[in-house]
């Protein structure tokens, strides 16, 4: 009797887990689809949107994790939104999650471009579309800057002079000096390793 009961309980837990997994996969697909359909203006826009969605709203990832994911997507070849989908999907549901997330993020551009490629001359020369795309940049900029204010606050909160200096230097290099993101990330990776070895040496001396 007891065994039967516990078997029933495990089976129920199993179906519940399967159900919640299905729900996660569906949420993953749906959110990637919507985010991708609204990403005007390049890779970092979608990173800001993903941070708002997966860190603030769904709380699937913590903030540090999202920044790590961003750094990884930047250092891998391929389009940033696709790369980020692969990693976030993998985090939530393994390889299946990656497939679902990538499908969600590539479908909107594929559908939109397939439609537009038929009548693209009219699309290209339509004045109102041009205006809408130009003004939308103001909204996109506001979204990114809102996210960056929150992220920068947290870097300041670490109270590590090295990190704060690195943030300022990286901004100057990226924005004013046009250094590529890849070079900046690799340089900071090297600084990270140097920082690690300094810490290890200190520890050894202390011990």
């Amino acid at each position, binding site marked *: 009797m007891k065994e039967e009961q516990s078997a029933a309980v495990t089976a129920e837990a199993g179906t519940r887990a399967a159900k919640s997994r299905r729900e996660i996969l569906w949420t993953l697909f749906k959110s990637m689809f919507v985010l991708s359909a*609204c990403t*005007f*203006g*390049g890779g*970092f*826009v979608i*990173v800001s949107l993903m941070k*708002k969605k997966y860190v603030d709203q769904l709380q699937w990832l913590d903030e540090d994790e999202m920044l*790590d994911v*961003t750094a990884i997507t*930047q*250092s*891998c070849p*391929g*389009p*940033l*939104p*696709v790369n980020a989908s*692969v*990693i976030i999907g*993998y*985090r939530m549901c393994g390889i299946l999650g*990656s497939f679902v997330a*990538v499908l969600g993020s590539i479908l909107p551009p*594929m559908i939109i*471009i397939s439609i537009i*490629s038929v009548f*693209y001359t009219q*699309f290209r020369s339509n004045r*109102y579309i041009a205006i*809408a795309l*130009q*003004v*939308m*940049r*103001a*909204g*996109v*900029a*506001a*979204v*990114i800057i809102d*996210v960056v*204010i929150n*992220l*920068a606050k947290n*870097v300041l909160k670490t109270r590590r002079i090295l990190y704060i200096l690195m*943030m300022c230097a*990286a901004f100057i290099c*990226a*924005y004013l000096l046009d250094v590529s*993101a*890849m070079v900046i*990330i690799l*340089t900071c990776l090297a*600084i*990270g390793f140097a*920082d*690690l070895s300094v*810490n290890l040496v200190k520890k050894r001396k202390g011990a």
Partner: protein
Amino acid sequence: MKLLLQLFFSFFQVGLFSVGGGYAAIPLIQDQIVNVTGLMTLEEFTDLITIAEMTPGPISINSATFVGTRLCGVLGAVICTLGCILAPFIICLTMAHFYYKYRNFSGVQNVLGALRPATVALIGSAGVSILVLALFQSDLAGIQLSNFRGIEFVLFGVCLFLLRKYKMSAITIILGSGVVGTVLYLLKDLILL
């Protein structure tokens, strides 16, 4: 069939070698599609870039779909897109696997900790570039004060306020700014007439 294979292989290379995303992929796509394979003329390619910039989604996926659709219909679009994301998919999956396996080691945390401020700065730099583009319709070097756009400036201020004070959803803000801004420009046209 031969064309499909050729398309797949061309976009596989685009996916594999476009490190740094977005605009870094344009010369690669041009090289593959216009110069090496001659699948498109330079003029068609310029149109393609204009459209890719005007629509949501990564430029390489947009171009893959565009080239594929024009040459082989829907099947072509699917094959090109698959080719384009195959290499990044495998590489990122591998990176994700190792990241989640080792991320909690203190040494790894130490190194990743140094990467985070830089990532914040990169996102910030992208944000400022788009803001300057919205306000002056040019990059930093080409700023002319006479090109300053008041409507976009007000929109930006209102959007940022709504985001910070009322935590409004980002999608609402982006789509809303498009609609409200377009209406404002139409009104301005009407008044000036």
